[in-house]
């Protein structure tokens, strides 16, 4: 495939936007409220599965099913969060990653409900291929035909997807940029810096943490829905814990504590992730395309270690607001 194939890069752009929304969810939980959620991927999985099951099996209209998906992710966040936001940070990390793995194992092992290892294709049982995507494709077609007035022939479904995703991303970023500077955001930061002090001035620490967790879950759910629509079919394997750490790497690559650094991080990450398949010089030419998938994951791990060691606040971050040192 050519490096300059525009269709590929438009696909990558859409993925980058989706990752930005996913990372924004983590930003609210981790950078604002100081909750190290290592199981963010669970919100994406719960929302995607709820939506796909309702559409494919019960023929719900797409907007309603999507809303149900977000609601399911919120319910899951409360289920996991009500008891566990009180935990010390490393215990919370372990508990959340275990929660995420429970979701993945259940998705894998409850084929009657989830299609099992086959994933969304198997939702209607063996022998039938289940689809959940037509409604979204139709929506994208309408957007594309509206766009063709402006763009002419260049307006395709993929262009429409990338535009829709990035529009949503920018709206959400502005919203949360504003929210961070509201009294609510300041309380969250106070809790992150010193929980006891926040308690002493009468703030309900647990309630604020739960709100942050739920907001993060909603953003995770949105990212999960968009990702499911973008890739068309999904299976439990798409919700490995690694996805959560992509989000952490995006936060770190951009800057741990600046909202507007998230899209920068998401674009950098996507370039790194998608771009490595085009670099064909030594020593990369030693790896075939199969190994390169693992090489990319190796790079994710390596960059996590490297940034945590040398620049934990991220490329554009602010060292003074660093909760990692606690």
């Amino acid at each position: 495939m050519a490096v300059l194939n525009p269709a590929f890069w438009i696909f990558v752009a859409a993925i980058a936007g989706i990752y930005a929304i996913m990372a924004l969810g983590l930003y609210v939980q981790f950078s604002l409220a100081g909750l190290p959620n290592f199981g963010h991927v669970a919100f994406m999985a719960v929302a995607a599965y709820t939506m796909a099951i309702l559409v494919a099996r019960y023929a719900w209209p797409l907007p309603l099913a999507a809303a149900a998906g977000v609601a399911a992710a919120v319910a899951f966040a409360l289920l996991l969060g009500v008891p566990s936001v009180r935990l010390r940070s490393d215990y919370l990390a372990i508990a959340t990653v275990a929660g995420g793995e429970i979701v993945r194992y259940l998705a894998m092992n409850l084929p009657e409900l989830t299609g099992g290892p086959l994933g969304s294709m198997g939702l209607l049982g063996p022998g039938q291929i289940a689809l959940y995507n037509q409604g979204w494709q139709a929506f994208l077609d309408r957007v594309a035909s509206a766009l063709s007035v402006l763009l002419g022939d260049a307006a395709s479904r993929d262009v429409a997807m990338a535009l829709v995703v990035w529009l949503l991303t920018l709206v959400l970023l502005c919203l949360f940029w504003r929210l961070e500077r509201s009294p609510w955001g300041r309380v969250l930061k106070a809790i992150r810096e010193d929980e006891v002090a926040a308690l002493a001035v009468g703030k309900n620490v647990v309630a604020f943490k739960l709100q942050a967790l739920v907001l993060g879950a909603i953003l995770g759910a949105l990212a999960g829905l968009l990702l499911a629509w973008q890739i068309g079919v999904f299976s439990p394997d798409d919700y490995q814990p690694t996805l959560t750490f992509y989000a952490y790497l995006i936060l770190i690559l951009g800057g741990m504590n600046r909202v507007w650094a998230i899209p920068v991080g998401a674009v950098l990450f996507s370039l790194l992730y998608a771009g490595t398949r085009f670099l064909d010089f030594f020593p990369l030419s030693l790896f075939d395309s199969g190994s390169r998938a693992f090489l990319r994951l190796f790079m994710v791990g390596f960059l996590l270690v490297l940034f945590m060691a040398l620049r934990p606040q991220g490329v554009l971050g602010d060292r003074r607001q660093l909760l990692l040192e606690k």
Partner: protein
Amino acid sequence: MLQQLAQLTLNGLITGAILALTGVGATLVFGIQRIANFAQGELLTFAAYVGLVLNAVYGQNLAVATLGAVLATALLALAMHLLVLRPLRGRGLVATSLITVGLGLMIRDVVFIVAGPQIRQLRIDQSAVLDLGPVRLSPGQAVAIAITAVAAPAVAFLLARTTLGKSMRAVADNRDLAAIAGVDVERIGTWVWLLAGGLAGIGGIMVAVVQGTFDPNLGFQVLFLIFTTVVLGGIGSAYGALAAGFVLGLVMELSTWSGFAGGLEPRFKPVLAFLALILLLLYRPQGLFGKARVL
């Protein structure tokens, strides 16, 4: 049904031995460095593949392969400690956890790149099942029992009787108190990582032979079981982890016994363990045997 109970008990003891041995290493690391080592599972993976190379490529027998794997994994754990985690100490719980996550990804994917994603097996004749009256023992299980018979008493002796083992337990229990009492905390930390790596090496080989086949995800699949063991036994408590490993192994296997309300379907065993982990963290973070205190 009783025969099934006996078989499940045996299986549970073998799973338990794996969790107990690896759990001891993980809990000492947790206690001493105050970090959750998310790369612990990958140490097991690494050991299984070192064993595979020695066993299948260089044609060494299993005993040599196990020893080699244990040594190599101990050195890898030591390198992690000296090159990465010790220089970066004081970075805080979350940063350190993320670093170990990154290290785990690096080790796992190097194994993926070098060895490939294919399913592998060590050279044992998997068809030679031992029939011991009521229970049957797969050759892998027999090897695992042999390894446990050597390793478990050695670990127990080290922890209970030697100065080194006592110092390890002291530092893991209360670092400052141990330092005041004259224990060289830095030196003990190095030994703890060597021990944790060696035990992970033993665990990796045991998982590989008991499962029969494995791929580079071997260690990550048992990581959370190891975490559950550590928390169940009380973080930093070596004896706690030894006991908790066997308890967890037995509970997981026996939960599928048909005499127990029809039994849980085996596919839900990991879910049971994860739920236990979350509930323990919430309601009894000091572990089953630990005393309540501020952690």
